[in-house]
């Protein structure tokens, strides 16, 4: 991701010494070719994004559509103040996010990397078979995964929950509505859904590691685990980095699973009792649904805060990587 060095080896690059105007004029057909994609990008991503950003500084709401006021940072101050329902809910959703994201990313990474290492060492004939199977949950849309897991985690009879209870985990717990367990439930569903995707990335990456390295290690008498630790993992470093970054970005936007699990006709019930399953995007959608003064402006401000978090996390990840290399 993020690498722009697609040097065209054969195409006579526009002469850098020519004036910019000429270079632009000569590239006209190129811009025409890029236009359809970028027009769509600007109309359906850029404009709404900028609009949302601008509206986060106003008292944008359904009832006050005609008289929009600039309110400066008021929406931001309100949702971060800790005073009032909209604020306590939003802060709670950030707290849930802070618990959910690291755990789900770590478990998702651990399981998929572990499986990839295992499969890498199994005979070839199993490899493609296992890979096909592992990817199946990823091919199933998330809204269907939720429906499936509701039954598996039914505390009375659900196959997974009742077996966990036998091991002493979550005895007499309703996973959907109980603090802590609710987040565990979302992690279960998310990991189940996303492992296939990460696995495929890891497993393909491992196949591209040169055989010579392993042969050299064999000569040194290294066993399977030493080879994993000393060759496979270091060679996979860039891919692991990509998967972590990608998983972080998608985990920060968690929405479908908890929304479907706790949605009802009452907007305030979204997220479950005591907001055990409330996440920022859900709180944004709640603001849209409850209407009221500046509700849409607040929703927009929450979107901006979440975006800042996403950008910051991505930035930190790239920083960390640069330091290492």
């Amino acid at each position, binding site marked *: 991701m993020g690498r*722009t060095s697609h040097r065209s080896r*054969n195409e006579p690059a526009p002469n850098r010494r020519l004036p910019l105007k000429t270079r632009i004029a000569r590239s006209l057909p190129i811009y025409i070719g890029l236009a359809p994609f970028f027009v769509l990008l600007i109309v359906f991503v850029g404009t709404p994004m900028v609009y949302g950003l601008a509206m986060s500084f106003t008292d944008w709401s359904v009832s006050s559509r005609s008289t929009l006021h600039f309110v400066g940072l008021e929406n931001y101050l309100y949702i971060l103040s800790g005073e009032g329902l909209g604020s306590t809910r939003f802060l709670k959703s950030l707290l849930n996010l802070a618990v959910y994201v690291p755990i789900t990313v770590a478990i998702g990474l651990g399981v998929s990397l572990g499986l990839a290492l295992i499969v890498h060492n*199994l005979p070839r004939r199993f490899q493609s078979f296992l890979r096909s199977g592992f990817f199946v949950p990823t091919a199933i849309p998330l809204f269907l995964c939720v429906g499936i897991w509701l039954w*598996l985690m039914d505390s009375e009879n659900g196959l997974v929950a009742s077996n966990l209870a036998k091991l002493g985990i979550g005895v007499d717990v309703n996973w959907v509505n109980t603090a802590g367990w609710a987040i565990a439930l979302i992690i279960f569903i998310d990991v*189940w859904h996303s492992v296939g995707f990460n696995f495929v*990335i890891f497993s393909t*990456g491992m196949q591209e590691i040169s055989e010579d390295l392993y042969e050299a290690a064999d000569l040194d008498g290294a066993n399977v685990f030493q080879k994993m630790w000393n060759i496979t993992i270091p060679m996979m470093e860039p891919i692991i980095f990509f998967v972590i970054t*990608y998983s972080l970005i998608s985990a920060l936007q968690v929405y479908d699973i908890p929304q479907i699990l706790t949605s*009802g006709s009452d907007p305030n019930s979204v997220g479950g009792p005591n907001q055990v399953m409330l996440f920022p995007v859900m709180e944004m959608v709640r603001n849209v649904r409850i209407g009221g003064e500046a509700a849409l402006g607040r929703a927009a401000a929450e979107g901006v805060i979440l975006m800042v978090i996403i950008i910051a996390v991505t930035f930190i990840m790239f920083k960390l990587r640069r330091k290492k290399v």
Partner: protein
Amino acid sequence: MPSRIAGKKRSRTGIILMAVLAFIWLLASLYPLWMIFSATFSSDSTNMSTALVPDDLANGWSKVVEAFTALDLGTTLRDTLIFTLIAIAGMALTSSLAAYEFTFFEFPGKKFLFAMLMGSMMLPLVLYVVPLYRQVFNMGLADSYLGVALPLMVSPLSVFILMQFMEDLPRSFIEAAQVDGAGHFRIFFFIVVPMLRNGLITATVLLALSVWGAFLWPSLVTGEEVKALSVAIANMFNPNFYVDPRVRFAAMLIAMIPPLLVYILFQRHVIKGVAMSGVKG
């Protein structure tokens, strides 16, 4: 390599242990699908959570029929298919053109535009979905196939994947065509596109899976003219009106068939596409 490892005695137990673990996850991946099937095709008096084997096929079939008639699943499937196809068509044209320009040419502003493309991969739809909805409505496209499909066809990931495929194309073809005086777009349509078959299939299948599973956007923008499958299914989770759980399972089973079919048929391409999105890390 596998044979070499297997040849080492001390690793054999390790291998068996690893194989067992892998098969456990395989079971975890596939069992829930079986559960949906067996719960749907079980008799009404069986406890659905513990229905391990289908014990009443006729009852299950009646639930499937009910899902189609009472929930109007046929229309929903058709509509979802139509907007998925439009999104794919739009993506194929716009993304492959953009990938073509980025891969083969240098031009002023390339770095900036490419950064914009990559940056937009990070921006989730949920963050700007409300302004987007108003935008689409103001364009007169709310509750139309095109309205659902347009925002979904903007796929930076597809551009990225198609670029990977294009890099592997022999550049000599393009050079030769340029020498012959073929135009910019002529080269694209008559030389690049025909060679891009695999890339297009990969991007198409990945987009199809994600559009089929999209929930938030269709739930806002669809309604009377267009009915989305994800919305119809999520509606059934609404606690304040009753849908027989087996009918719901039957509907889920039906909703699952198209993506699974696409995956099974184009498995090689799906896996290649997913791998590509990560390999260039």
